[in-house]
């Protein structure tokens, strides 16, 4: 045990004396979470729109007032000519044009259902979609308002109600993803680099020719990073709670337990990478290409797994990050307990065991 | 005789530590100059200043007629350099290495071609010309590396421990190459930890703690220090 503690102490010296690694360890989570939280967002705010009102009557005025009163839109321009629509889009400032048809009020009163046409600039499809949804919602509210005294007999009203993230805040979606990416990066890349560094320096030769057992070398390498990764996970959660008002509905203890499980998965992957790479550079390349890309692209972090082509959906199942993101979202946003995520947890656990067994099998007691 | 290296009071300090302490010496054209010293005596720092990759703190030096302070770029074009740590690219073939190094010294395509062939003939490399350098024995690498350092006909060649770890026969073949280059007028500035090699030099300087403690022909040094060979001279001096 004393042997082992001595080893762990040495690992901490390495980490604490290497300024660059320290920065990656602690600077990156903060920068990433802030970047994702502030810069990348699906929400819209003061989007410039133009109005082409053929009617210019009471109703259209009221609707226009409602829209301009919301903080989502700023009415930037009024258009009077069909031809101008294209030119305002080309200038780029206007993201949507609203067209009210002729005799709007008259049609409404005579029960002929007038139409509002929304033309949105879909060069950014997400924004266009959101704009159209928001405008729709405003108009619907208005219609309900004017109809409140009139009993409507036959009407099916689809009411959508967003649960778990009622304000559709994108930061809620990114926090679990960023946390997953960072834990993967810190745990897998850092351990694989730190083990291959010993190979490069030649110190691995001495460690092998010593009474230390391979399992002690591996555990000694891993433990400092478990510790650091847990700190990282806590930093991320604290940041998202206090800066982005991210709720953690479920149990913090469960969240902690699941995080540690995922950290161990990532560390096992890191050890596996170190057994197949001879240099720090290779270890880093494999970690980045082999782990980071799948985590970002296939885990459901950015692109929903459900809308991927079938082969990719199948591949996504072998990516541990996918399951961790599901678990994280379930705990943080839905507030569910282990009863609802035991399946994902079990999958993660099985994967971890598999990686640990594989890497201990592959870990060489000799140089070849 | 023309001096190709002239150093006067050359000094380099790192903070409070003076690595090279006011060394003055000169090296003549075509001379084999042995630059000896214990590890940490300041040899590497001194060489770095002479080849124009480190600025002296004070003092003055001219290498191949150029000032180390103001004309470092001209110095680099007129010298060859070979170190034990970095010589050739292991993942390029012998030919590719020669072409590359010929290229960075601005040799024309035709010149590189003739020089490559001449070098391959001289070192008997026909069979391995297209092999990766990494697969060759160390002694071969060092010989090729030396020839590459001479490709652009430099006035001076700096050799930093060129023969470390090389087998005794190849080591001597290497020195035959050095003699030949010197005979043709190239100045050789060489460091080594083999004291028998110190005897092959025309003149030898021994650095101790940043200063040149002795500088003379091997014969005179042995006489002055009443030593049987250069190893004894070195031990007497460097032990301080």
């Amino acid at each position, binding site marked *: 045990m004393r042997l082992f503690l*001595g080893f762990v102490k*040495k690992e901490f010296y390495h980490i604490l004396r290497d300024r660059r690694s320290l920065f990656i360890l602690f600077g990156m989570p903060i920068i990433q979470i802030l970047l994702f939280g502030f810069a990348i967002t699906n929400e819209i705010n003061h989007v410039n729109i133009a109005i082409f009102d053929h009617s210019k009557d009471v109703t259209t005025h009221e609707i226009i007032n409602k829209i301009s009163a919301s903080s989502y839109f700023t009415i930037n321009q009024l258009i009077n000519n069909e031809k101008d629509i294209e030119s305002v889009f080309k200038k780029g400032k206007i993201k949507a044009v609203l067209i009210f048809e002729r005799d709007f009020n008259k049609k409404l009163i005579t029960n002929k259902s007038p139409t509002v046409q929304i033309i949105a600039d879909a060069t950014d499809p997400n924004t266009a979609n959101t704009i159209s949804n928001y405008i729709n919602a405003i108009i619907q509210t208005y219609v309900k308002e004017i109809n409140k005294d009139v009993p409507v007999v036959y009407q099916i009203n689809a009411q959508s109600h967003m649960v778990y993230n009622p304000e559709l805040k994108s930061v809620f979606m990114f926090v679990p993803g960023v946390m997953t990416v960072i834990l993967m990066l810190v745990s897998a890349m850092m351990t694989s680099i730190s083990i291959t560094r010993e190979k490069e320096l030649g110190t691995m030769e001495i460690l092998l020719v010593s009474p230390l057992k391979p399992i002690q070398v591996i555990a000694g390498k891993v433990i400092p990073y478990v510790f650091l990764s847990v700190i990282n996970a806590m930093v991320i959660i604290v940041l998202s709670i206090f800066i982005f008002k991210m709720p953690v509905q479920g149990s913090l203890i469960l969240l902690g337990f699941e995080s540690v499980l995922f950290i161990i998965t990532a560390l096992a992957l890191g050890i596996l990478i170190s057994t197949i790479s001879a240099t720090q550079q290779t270890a880093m390349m494999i970690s980045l290409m082999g782990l980071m890309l799948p985590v970002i692209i296939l885990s459901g972090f950015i692109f929903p797994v459900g809308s991927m082509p079938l082969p990719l959906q199948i591949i996504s199942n072998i990516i541990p990050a996918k399951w961790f993101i599901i678990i994280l979202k379930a705990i943080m946003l839905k507030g569910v307990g282990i009863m609802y995520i035991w399946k994902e947890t079990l999958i993660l656990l099985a994967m971890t065991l598999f990686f640990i067994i594989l890497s201990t099998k592959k870990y060489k007691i000799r140089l070849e | 005789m023309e001096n190709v290296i002239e150093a006067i009071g050359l000094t380099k300090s790192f903070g409070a530590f003076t690595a090279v302490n006011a060394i003055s010496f000169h090296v003549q054209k075509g001379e084999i100059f042995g630059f000896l010293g214990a590890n940490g005596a300041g040899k590497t720092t001194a060489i770095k200043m002479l080849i124009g990759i480190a600025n002296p703190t004070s003092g003055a030096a001219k290498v191949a007629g150029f000032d180390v302070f103001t004309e470092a770029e001209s110095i680099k074009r007129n010298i060859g350099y070979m170190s034990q740590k970095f010589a050739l690219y292991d993942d390029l073939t012998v030919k590719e290495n020669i072409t590359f190094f010929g290229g960075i010294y601005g040799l024309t395509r035709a010149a590189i071609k003739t020089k490559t062939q001449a070098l391959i003939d001289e070192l008997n490399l026909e069979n391995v010309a297209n092999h990766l350098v990494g697969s060759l024995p160390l002694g071969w690498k060092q010989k090729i590396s030396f020839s590459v350092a001479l490709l652009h006909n430099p006035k001076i060649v700096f050799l930093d421990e060129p023969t470390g770890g090389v087998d005794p026969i190849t080591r001597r073949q290497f020195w035959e190459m050095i003699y030949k280059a010197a005979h043709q007028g190239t100045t050789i500035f060489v460091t080594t930890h083999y004291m028998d090699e110190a005897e092959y030099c025309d003149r030898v300087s021994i650095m101790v703690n940043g200063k040149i403690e002795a500088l003379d022909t091997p014969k005179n040094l042995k006489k002055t220090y009443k030593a049987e060979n*250069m190893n004894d001279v070195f031990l007497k001096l460097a032990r301080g």
Partner: protein
Amino acid sequence: MSITLNHISKSYKNVQALNDISFNVKAGELFGLIGPDGAGKTTLFRILTTLLTADSGSATVSNFDVVKDYKKIRNSVGYMPGKFSLYQDLTVEENLNFFATIFGTTIKENYDLIKDIYVQIEPFKNRRAGKLSGGMKQKLALCCALIHKPEVLFLDEPTTGVDPVSRKEFWDMLKRLQQTGITILVSTPYMDEAALCDRIAFIQNGSILEIDSPQEIVKHFSKTLYNIRAHNMYQLMESLSHYKHTFSAYPFGEYVHYSDNRMDMNPNELHMYLVSKGLNEIIIEVTQPTIEDTFMALAK
């Protein structure tokens, strides 16, 4: 026997690194493995320290088999690999402490063994290993390899790239260590260090050329050897390389060591030849072959 090797062979891909190597090292012996870079010394060390397995043959260290009993060997030997193997970002003291700890001991416990060496680096004990000079690094590495009081010490090229002063100090230390009963197997490319060993093995291209004590090994040099000197070394070497009776001519310090391809050579004849080549101040005298002469003759 402290170390035994029986018909050990090892190849990598298409390179034969070791070819049928057999020899024994007695307990308490200082045994030198002498050969150039690439001769197979490191491979041999790695097989004996259980880091590699041989393709064929068997070997024991302290009577333990290098394959079967590798764990026991790892507990009882000290190893200093060729590449400098200390943690550059740890201080001198931290390095030593670390190696003491992983071998289950403390600096205090075996301080006697390393004292002589450690006092020389103790003033720098709070300096990072990366900032030490070559000679200092070496002493520290030796301390680290010794800290657990090994029965057998493996030193792979400990003095390569080290200046003659530090090398001499290092060998003085080895001699003192030997007094404590430790068996030492050391490799070196420096022939002058061979003379300091009890016995030496010449190794070249994966094969053992000869094994003997330094005093005896020079007897394997069968020809008469001459020291030749003249006013110009380059000219002398050129002339000798064109002399039809030259068997070997190698520069050795201020002389050329010359051997003739005839049994009954007449030095005067050579003298005349050299004069005819324009050389003067010629000296030709019989000399005793050195270990290096012997190595070159055997390796030729």
